[in-house]
């Protein structure tokens, strides 16, 4: 078998149309992600990161270009994609159990075995006896962990993380980063993280793609050094190589912001 990347984004260009104008969100974006790899999209707001994630998820079809997962277009019921949003978006009218099982229910894979595995995830994430509770009864961190269980319950091959830690307090955020990181490594999942937090991107990923904005293009790619990649996000922040990379990306990001303001004025 030819060495085809697990996830391929090929020449994706996306434009939003409205009555008044056309807004170029993405231009000629090509990315290859290997199986088990963790890639972060970093960039200023409005650089089309979330749009790209929606395109990869198959929710939005790009104006041009295509996305392939294992060489196929990810469409229909058998898409193996998990998506996590800024907030948990657990359905408030469903119990935690119903929330976690909804994906299996929709994809008609709900059986005694899958149900047990899915509910087992809750315990793995430190959520005990919450099955019959409603999301309102849980704290923000607990809810986001339940949302992670809901996403992983359908056993997705790729996890798309759209700033899932941005709405949490710092301590909860660090804990959850470690949890997600370890879970992904255990199950060898491929992941794409959208974030504007440089530290988070370095601590969690193998590779960081820096996006410039309007239209969003890949400005630069940073490979995260081996020692950091091996550590959990929390430990990675103590690693000597962490700070230099942080400074480097910080500078690039600032330059990018300046460029956009200059072209505007």
């Amino acid at each position: 078998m030819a060495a085809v990347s697990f996830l391929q984004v090929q020449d994706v260009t996306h434009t939003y149309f409205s009555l008044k104008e056309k807004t170029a969100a993405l231009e000629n974006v090509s990315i290859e992600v290997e199986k088990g790899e963790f890639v972060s999209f970093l960039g200023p707001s409005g650089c089309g990161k979330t749009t790209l994630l929606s395109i990869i998820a198959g929710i939005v079809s790009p104006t041009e270009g295509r996305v392939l997962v294992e060489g196929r277009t990810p469409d229909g019921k058998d898409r193996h994609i998990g998506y996590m949003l800024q907030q948990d978006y657990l359905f408030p009218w469903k119990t935690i159990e119903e929330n976690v099982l909804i994906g299996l229910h929709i994809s008609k894979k709900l059986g005694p075995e899958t149900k047990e595995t899915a509910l087992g995830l809750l315990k793995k994430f430190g959520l005990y006896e919450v099955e019959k509770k409603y999301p309102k009864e849980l704290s923000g961190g607990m809810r986001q962990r339940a949302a992670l269980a809901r996403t992983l319950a359908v056993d997705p091959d790729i996890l798309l993380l759209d700033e899932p830690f941005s709405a949490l307090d710092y301590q909860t955020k660090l804990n959850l980063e470690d949890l997600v990181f370890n879970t992904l490594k255990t199950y060898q999942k491929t992941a794409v993280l959208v974030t504007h937090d440089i530290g988070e991107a370095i601590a969690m990923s193998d590779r960081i793609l820096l996006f410039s904005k309007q239209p969003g293009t890949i400005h630069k790619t940073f490979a995260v050094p081996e020692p950091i990649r091996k550590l959990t996000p929390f430990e990675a922040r103590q690693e000597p190589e962490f700070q230099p990379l942080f400074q480097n990306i910080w500078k690039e990001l600032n330059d990018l912001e300046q460029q956009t303001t200059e072209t505007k004025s």
Partner: protein
Amino acid sequence: MTLNNKQPKPKVDFLHEAFLKEQQAEKRRVRFFQIAIFIVFFSLWETASRLAWIDPLIFSSPSAVWALFLEKMGDGSLPGHIGVTVFETILGFLAGTLLGTFLAALLWWFPRLSKILDPYLVVLNAMPKVALGPILIVAIGPSLTSIIAMGAIISVIITTIVVYTSFQEIDENYLKVMKTFGATKREIFKEVILPASIPTIISTLKVNVGLSWVGVIVGEFLVSAQGLGYMIIYGFQVFNFNLVMLSLLIIAVFATLMYQGVELLERKWMKGRV
């Protein structure tokens, strides 16, 4: 919140007791005035009528209404009238709410339909529905059905508009979650759109209870066969205002009971959500 620290805090407990006592006292004061208003209103009414401050022929009096109540209960005619009206109101109210929600679902399902129908909904909503009464009675016949139709038609359009608006206001991200699982439109409606709108649907239920009473009473005015609305119009025609007052009081009681029933339902459905 109870303050349950390791070491007992007598002062805090004492303050807590005082707080609870004050709450109780406040509750009693409110209840006292509520009952007082009730008693004062009815005794003032009775006195004013007896001393002819107001015309007893027009404004009746509590004792006369009570006597009539006992008489009508005795000959068994009153329970029949009450039963008919309550039955019509409940059916009209259910039909209006269900049909309205169904129409809202239709508009959600076919966005183009909602765009096309928008001006018509505005017109229908602005129009006073009771004005359709005579046409309904001619079309359906002067029967129970046309009265129920009145009870329903008065609430159906406003229900459609309010529920459809709530369908549209649901956070796009909930739909995104469902789409990433590959959910169909039908599944999205069943699992997200409808349950997310339950609070709105319940609040329309509350409004619809009142509206359906209006529709049914007007319907009974027009059909004039039986029911509390018929009692009012009959009392008016034969100048028996004891009868009119009796009907009004009974309507007040049953409308309140139905409203309380909806609130009970609300508490049951909303359990755990808030």
